[in-house]
């Protein structure tokens, strides 16, 4: 019984991690149609921001939950203004540019921090469940993911910015005719997506540690989750995360982490074979 509880918490943590690392990409790719191959590097930058700030003596919660997303959001806005905005509607060029960007970011962080693994210890200690012990941080990740998704949903559903952003993505000319400034909306939305990636990087840093090349480990999973989720940004990311995260975790427990990853990829291939539009493209067409 206690084993079941512990395994469920681990599975929830896997789902929450997958959802967190994918949601920034889901917004940038799902809403703006920008294929951001530097997404993994945004996570990496968030991780470095969190680690550097924590090591400088700033409270770990402030550095992971506030500073990491803030720093990466600012970097994201700068990148949108200097690179991405010239490439809207040109997906192939965007891919090349963001790939180049990802190489650049890896190179520059390697020059600054060196190619060694940096890390901080997970806060919050451990929990006892029957005969088992787990990191309390696992549960905290689940709570952070729930809070993040609730906040995104509320912002896009209820705020004026949310309404303007959704309308701009649907029809920028019409939005502009109604007095909206689409470039500002694009920059803000890209910044939010980058900031969410930074948050995920900061939250994951105590678990995985950070190296300049860690983005490669994230970007593939994030793309699989977003594409598997389909057109609905939030519902898609959540449903794909639940599916892939649970499969990965269960198979990993039954065999090894390698087979777990293979199972995740196999599940994605099978899913896209039968639902080329992703989960939300096939089931709830009207979900947002």
């Amino acid at each position, binding site marked *: 019984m206690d*084993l079941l509880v*512990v*395994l469920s918490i*681990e599975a929830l*943590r*896997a789902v929450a991690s997958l959802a967190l690392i994918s949601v920034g990409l889901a917004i940038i790719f799902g809403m703006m149609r920008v294929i951001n191959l530097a997404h993994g590097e945004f996570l990496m930058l968030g991780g470095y921001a969190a680690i550097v700030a924590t090591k400088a003596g700033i409270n770990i919660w402030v550095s992971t939950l506030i500073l990491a997303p803030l720093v990466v959001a600012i970097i994201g806005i700068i990148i949108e203004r200097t690179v991405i905005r010239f490439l809207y509607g040109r997906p192939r060029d965007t891919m090349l540019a963001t790939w180049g960007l*990802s*190489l*650049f970011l*890896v*190179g*520059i962080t*390697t*020059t600054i921090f*060196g*190619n*060694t*693994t*940096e*890390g901080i*210890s*997970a806060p919050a*200690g*451990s*929990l*006892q469940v029957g*005969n*088992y*012990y*787990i*990191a309390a*941080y*696992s549960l905290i990740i689940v709570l952070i993911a729930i809070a993040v998704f609730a906040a995104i949903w509320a912002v896009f559903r209820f705020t004026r910015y949310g309404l303007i952003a959704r309308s701009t993505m649907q029809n920028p000319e019409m939005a502009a005719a109604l007095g909206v400034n689409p470039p500002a909306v694009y920059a803000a939305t890209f910044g939010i997506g980058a900031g969410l990636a930074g948050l995920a990087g900061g939250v994951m840093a*105590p*678990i*995985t*540690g950070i*190296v*300049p*090349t*860690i983005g*490669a*480990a994230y970007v593939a999973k994030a793309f699989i989750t977003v594409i598997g989720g389909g057109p609905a940004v939030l519902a898609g990311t959540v449903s794909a995360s639940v599916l892939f995260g649970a499969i990965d*975790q269960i198979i*990993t*427990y039954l065999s*090894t*982490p*390698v087979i*777990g990853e293979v199972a995740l990829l196999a599940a994605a291939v099978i899913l896209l074979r039968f639902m080329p539009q992703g989960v939300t493209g096939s089931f709830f067409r009207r979900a947002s």
Partner: protein
Amino acid sequence: MTIMTNINRRSFLKSSAGAATSLGLIGAGGKAFASDETIRIASLLDLSGGLDALGKPMQDAITFAVEEINAAGGLLGKQIELVTYDTQSDMRLYPQYAQQAVMKDKVAAAFGGITSASREVMRPVFRRLNTLYFYNTQYEGGVCDRNIFCTGITPAQKQSKHVPYAMNKWGKKIYTLAADYNYGQITADWTRKYCMDNGGQIVGQDFFPLDVTNFGSTIQKIQEAKPDFIYTVLVGGAHQSFYRQWAAAGMNTRIPLASTTMTIGGEQKFLAPEETNGILLCFNYFEELDTPANKAFLERFHKRFGADYPYVTELAMATYQSVYLWAEGVKKAGTAERMPVIEALESGISLDLPSGKFSIDPQTHHVIMDINIGQIQDRKINILESYPQQHSLDTSAVCDLKKNPDDNTMYVIKV
């Protein structure tokens, strides 16, 4: 150690671009003048890329050895000139730089290679081009080639002492966590052998590719299997997250750890003390060795590289000492030419060095050395036990270069 790097196009492009923006090649510009006044040696180590944490201390160590020998008057009246190649954790660069070192720089001997894969790429090059080669990393044993000297510790020297010691201390049930390539797998096999020989039991065994960072479900599996201790053969930066997650789950005070790789990149200095406290280690060298030779070495080394130098690792010390072995061979031979130096080294050269007595075994070209067991406490290592002058019995069981001087095999020893 062996690492099969898993190269996909993305990571390949990334690493090449990363290298291009960082150091690139250091000092590879071979000088054109003939080396009548100097004896050249080459160092081929990963000073950037994923293995740089291992390579940098080794490079400092070889630099230091060369500077010391030069300051003491050099070798045969000549200065030693060190040519440094940064192999950038990239397997393709090893054979290329190995050839360059021989053909362009005309080095008398080459030192380096970190993973077993890199050694096996360079070994045939140096053999074919008649250049003496020193490999200075702990590895799985079994290299049998008269052109190479292996100064690293092998399983018969290490696991044969480490595993029984931990079993005496903690109990007979072991859970092994190892990196998923031949170094990890072969080391896990040796761990199993020494566990069985001492009446123990392997209650679980997991292998992880080098990029795995999530050990959550493994930590649950370990708690389910209830081992008396865990034996880790984890390699590289990603695997360090095991120690963090283990401590975060509060298991660090419940099930003890023994590790064969911890500290070779100075990890105990940047993981938190509570994440590494109590880990049982086994090496030839620890900075904490309390001998006059080691204290004198550290004083000189810290004067040159700064008092805040992180840690002189096992691999760095083996590299430093290998230069002294080679220099002794050159002195004894009266020349830096390959064959006379090999014959001089085979005459049974034995030196008193910072890690203790370091003697070449002529039969295997491996080293007979002291083995020490230590335990980490607050980023320092307490030495608990010493086993003087251990032979590389795994290699000598399959390799006899006296009988078969032309042998050129990497034996995979059946456990």
